[in-house]
């Protein structure tokens, strides 16, 4: 990008991008490439999540922004200033480490004061007290890190980074070591703090629920590249790749043959039933006769008795047999075996207006065409499915 070269050195100048800008960032290790020519814009003040399975390059990207890893090539700019090769202590960036990395030989107060003391701040005491108040730890100042619970240590790590008012705060799987309940409450807490302080947060996680709860924008990473980027709802509703469709929630991917465009839709032959997909949800060239994947989220699939009218304008697809029923409480999850052998997942809200279907029952299924999406058949239909829910 020519803009990189032209960007004035001083921050705040007109034309400089206010925020974090990454261009063609690449990191090669001896045996593999962790990050491949990554481009990324993180607007100032946003809560940005890098989401992906372990080994996808998200942590490496974060560490390059922090300066803890040297890029092979590419550039990292912060408010128009190139920081690609700066030492970690020369960047206005702070990190919340995965296992907190609190200094065990210093008490909580000194842990939080560490950054200010290195920069010879005059306001150490007042700032530390304010920050400890923000994370509700003002009564623990003289304890050492090992004396605190996991959640408290997490808050110290957050306070220690935040107190420096970095331009970007990096969070590396910050909640990975906490149990589920604590993780949920910390998600809300971190989001609250971010709103309160208004800093840019870049959050790395493998937990899609965590990313969707906290972030304004999510970039889904896989094998060193960003597969798709956008608001959580946008990514969920209109995934562009099979990986995103499977990694972010669940999807039914059905093999279809493209019949060609028709107005604002692309018509496909789905195992004998014609279906229409809106053009803006079509992420493949609509070449007639080519194969493709139609994706539909399980909760968008409607299920009904054979011949019953389904509240969907499209064709209903006959011939399904319920092969499995799991009653969850708020919803019921069905597996419906279709005539072509595939099992389609169906989630139905338990509104009480409809009866439960039993295993072995004949059913029809359908959906609103505007909920489906069309993906490239060259992509693996199972990409991103078997995500492990363990911290990387």
């Amino acid at each position, binding site marked *: 990008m020519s803009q990189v070269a032209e960007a004035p050195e001083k921050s705040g100048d007109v034309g400089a991008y206010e925020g974090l800008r990454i261009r063609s960032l690449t990191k090669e290790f001896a045996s593999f490439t962790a990050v491949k020519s990554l481009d990324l814009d993180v607007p100032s003040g946003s809560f940005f999540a890098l989401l992906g399975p372990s080994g996808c390059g998200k942590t490496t990207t974060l560490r390059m922004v*922090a*300066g*803890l890893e040297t890029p092979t090539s590419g550039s990292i700019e912060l408010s128009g200033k190139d920081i690609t090769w700066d*030492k*970690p*202590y020369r960047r206005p*960036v*702070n*990190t919340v*480490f*995965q*296992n907190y*990395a*609190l*200094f*065990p*030989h210093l008490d909580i107060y000194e842990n939080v004061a*560490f*950054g200010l003391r*290195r*920069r010879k701040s005059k306001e150490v005491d007042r700032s530390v007290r304010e920050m400890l108040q923000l994370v509700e730890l003002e009564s623990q100042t003289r304890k*050492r890190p*090992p*004396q605190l619970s996991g959640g408290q240590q997490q808050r110290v790590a957050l306070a*220690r*980074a935040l107190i*420096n008012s970095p331009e970007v705060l990096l969070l590396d799987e910050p909640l990975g070591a906490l149990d589920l309940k604590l993780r949920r409450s910390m998600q809300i807490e971190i989001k609250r703090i971010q709103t309160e302080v208004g800093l840019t947060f870049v959050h790395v996680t493998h937990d899609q629920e965590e990313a969707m709860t906290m972030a304004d924008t999510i970039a889904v990473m896989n094998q060193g590249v960003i597969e798709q980027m956008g608001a959580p709802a946008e990514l969920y509703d209109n995934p562009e790749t099979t990986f995103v469709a499977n990694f972010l929630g669940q999807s039914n991917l059905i093999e279809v043959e493209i019949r060609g465009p028709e107005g604002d839709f692309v018509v496909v032959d789905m195992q004998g039933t014609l279906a229409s997909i809106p053009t803006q949800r079509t992420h493949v060239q609509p070449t007639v006769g080519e194969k493709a994947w139609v994706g539909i989220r399980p909760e968008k699939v409607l299920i009904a008795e054979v011949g019953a009218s389904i509240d969907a304008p499209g064709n209903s697809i006959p011939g399904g047999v319920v092969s499995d029923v799991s009653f969850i409480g708020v919803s019921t999850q069905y597996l419906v075996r279709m005539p072509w052998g595939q099992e389609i997942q169906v989630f139905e809200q338990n509104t009480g207006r409809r009866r439960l279907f039993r295993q072995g029952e004949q059913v029809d299924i359908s959906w609103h065409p505007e909920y489906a999406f069309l993906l490239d058949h060259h992509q693996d239909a199972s990409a991103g499915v078997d995500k492990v829910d363990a911290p990387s």
Partner: protein
Amino acid sequence: MSPLQRMGRWVGQHLVLMGGLLVIVYMFVPIFVVVLMSFNKPKSKLIYRFDSFTLQNWLHPCTDQSMCSALSRSIQIGLLATVVATVLGTLMAFALVRHRFEGRAVANLLVFLPMASPEIVMGSSLLALFVAAGFGGQLGFWTILIAHIMFCLSFVVVTVRARLAGLDNNLEQAAMDLYATEAQTFRRVTLPLVFPGILGAALLSFSLSFDDFIITNLNAGNTTTFPMYVWGVAQRGVPMQVNVVGTVMFLVSIAIVVGAELNRRRQEKALA
């Protein structure tokens, strides 16, 4: 429970206690003798027996000038060897733990060798080396020092390496992330966390050096260290002041051990 059983149990329990006490007595009798003898006023130099109490040995420890000069030489060598071995060994431990280099596994193994090989082998090969290198005529303070640094090194490397290996290197990255330069990171984070290991290594080095006889004896030439002095006088009557030195050494060791233990307990209490 029958009275017989109860008695059996009483005996059993107290047998263990008795046995324990005997073992402790067994361990401390020699030290007790040393302490006792430091207050002894012997009738004859050749009979090692407590005759009458005196403070003279403590008040005039340097009656035998050669003992005190040997002692001061041992302390000098000990301190110098400790400083050099601790610095070199710590650097080496950092290299072995922190850097991936060709031959690292071999280096890790080789470090153990001087600890494992018999002193007599090390001592005689060093002597052969010094002689072959043309220093046969200059054996003395400096050759002893070189020998001591050599055998202390392994112990320092092993001790510091263990401490370093247990150190989370995220901590240093965190420090750098929090605006600490490399030097500040080392001073504020790495050193305080590794220091207990370094201190332990230094104490170990000093006691190894102070105590060494075999390697020293082979490479000393005409120079006499404290252990060599004691060995030499043992045949013609040990002056009671040697016991004063022994007692002082023992007290210093106890002070260090107790101090370390108290410090550990205090830290544990702070963590409780």
